[in-house]
């Protein structure tokens, strides 16, 4: 059982945090990860920045652009993370777009992830069918969970298919939108959360996109196993600096 599945088996609602590697400063990556774990975060999505992040709203677009400007690359991220398992034990997931992984070489990328102790990948623009046909064996070979997204528009039938090829959790996109912080969820989201809960899926669900504070975290985790906060955390770093990771986490729970 890998770290993700172990964590999912714990009897609690999980808080997962996304941040963009290389932002605010190039060498903040390791410190942010360590501080997030110390603050009690359950899981971390390390964002591999991309020049053209289609599924992201302005906050993550800007942090990605800044990280690339700072000099972040795939190689450098792996270099920064090489000793991460000496100090950090919670699940670590790399979230990024497929093109930089392709250029690194998908197999080499997966091998490096295993060597470092990365537990899973979230690749928004690698569709289920492509993964299933071309990459699933490679991911499995290196012990990586691949996390798929579902949205309010995803049909029940497709959700069940995604559930059947998933390993770990399902990333439940809260609403029809790009990433970005929201202050509250309306009835539409609540109905969607309930509809998914009623499907009784094999894999637990973790909600992302639009989670920004205690209220949205609580709403999202009423039915789901956990929630992911990205843009709101990045905004916090932008305004308050990397020394204040703990302060942010405390506002959520």
């Amino acid at each position, binding site marked *: 059982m890998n770290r993700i599945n172990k964590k999912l088996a714990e009897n609690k609602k999980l808080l997962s945090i996304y941040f963009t590697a290389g932002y605010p400063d190039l060498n903040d990556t390791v410190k942010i990860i360590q501080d997030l774990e110390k603050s009690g975060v359950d899981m971390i999505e390390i964002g591999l920045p991309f*020049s*053209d992040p*289609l599924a992201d709203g302005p906050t993550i677009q800007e942090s990605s*652009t800044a990280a*690339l400007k700072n000099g972040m*690359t795939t190689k450098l991220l792996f270099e920064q993370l090489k000793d991460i398992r000496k100090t950090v034990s919670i699940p670590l997931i790399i979230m990024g777009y497929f093109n930089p992984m392709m*250029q*690194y070489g998908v197999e080499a990328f997966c091998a490096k992830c295993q060597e470092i102790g990365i537990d899973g990948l979230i690749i928004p623009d690698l569709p289920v069918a492509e993964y299933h046909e071309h990459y699933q064996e490679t991911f499995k070979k290196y012990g990586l969970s691949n996390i*798929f*997204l579902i949205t309010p528009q995803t049909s029940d039938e497709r959700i069940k298919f995604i559930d059947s090829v998933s390993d770990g959790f399902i990333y439940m996109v809260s609403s029809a939108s790009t990433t970005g912080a929201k202050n509250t969820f309306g009835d539409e989201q609540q109905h969607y959360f309930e509809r998914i809960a009623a499907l009784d899926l094999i894999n637990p669900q973790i909600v992302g996109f639009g989670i920004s504070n205690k209220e949205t975290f609580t709403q999202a985790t009423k039915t789901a196993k956990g929630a992911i906060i990205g843009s709101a955390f990045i905004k916090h770093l932008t305004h308050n600096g990397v020394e204040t990771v703990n302060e942010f986490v405390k506002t959520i729970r």
Partner: protein
Amino acid sequence: MSYQVDEKGYYGDFGGAFIPEMLYPNVEELRTSYLQIMEEPSFKKEFNQLLKDYVGRPSPLYFAKRLSEKHNTKVYLKREDLNHTGAHKVNNTIGQILVAKHLGKNRIIAETGAGQHGVATATVCALMGIQCVVYMGEIDIKRQAPNVARMKMLGAEVRPAKSGSKTLKDATNEAIRDWINNPVDTHYIIGSAIGPHPYPDMVTRFQSIISEEIKWQLKEKEGRELPDYVVACIGGGSNAAGTYYHFLDEPSVGIIAVEAAGKGVNSGESAATSQLGKEGIIHGCKTLLMQTSDGQITEPYSISAGLDYPGVGPLHSHLYKTGRGEFFSVTDDDAMAAGLELSQLEGIIPAIETSHALAIFNDKQFKPEDIVVISLSGRGDKDLNTYIDYFKL
């Protein structure tokens, strides 16, 4: 060797649909229905009627006598510049607006670089009374003021893309993000033979009217359907795809693609994707694209805003890789000279994109008896300011 898209959306190694799950329902709806919609007699009737009465098709296939004498070969120009709105782009927007209507969509989004596709989209939206939002890079909005004004006059809202390099690539990103945020009522009219499957094939089919007409027009003029060469400029590659389409499986027809070399292929300021690109993913498809060794997409350069795109349609990547297409790259200077030459030999001022195709005679020697058909994809009115600055007119 097949040059048609396969059932999984690939041209050989290129194509596919690398899209976030948020776009899946829309793209899947399109994938499962576009061929069926296009086959319906009522659709065909309306499409053909509009092409005839509204766009002004068939566009002439014009024997360019003086240009032919100059280059000692037989040159025909396929006059897409004479279409309503001044370029080939409208063939596709007419088709896609009818598809959108069929799917019950009541809001249209589009991306545009130079503004030609934006104008063609705003035009068909006005024609059908459908709301239209066009994304355009902030920098392009400043460079292409007349086309921005045309879109506004046609009732479209032009939204500036302020992310990244603020040009066509970023306008496309913004349009995709809009579609993610408006998944139910909106159809995205992509303007080139790019994007996730089925877009490259759908756009190619709508543009294939170009080669369909070339065949019967050439039969009338020369007593044969097949030219020796078809030549087109390539940015994303929609006019090229339409110009080649009915000749792809005719091995006697040479396929020539002309890319923008900008200030020179190795100058660092170029848009010659087949020469500088590597296989990767851009805007939902696997294709050749200009990128860093780390997989970050780079900003191309060309004097022509319509060729200023870091990728190329997956069909063209396939034509390049298999050797079916012969690829050339033409610098800004050579393109501008070719545009001036056509103006003064034939009385036709071409779009600067098209001028790249017209510069083929510098690089390729044709035989006197060869029949060479060049796609005259657009007219030069929109580029007058660039011509004025360049030639100090």
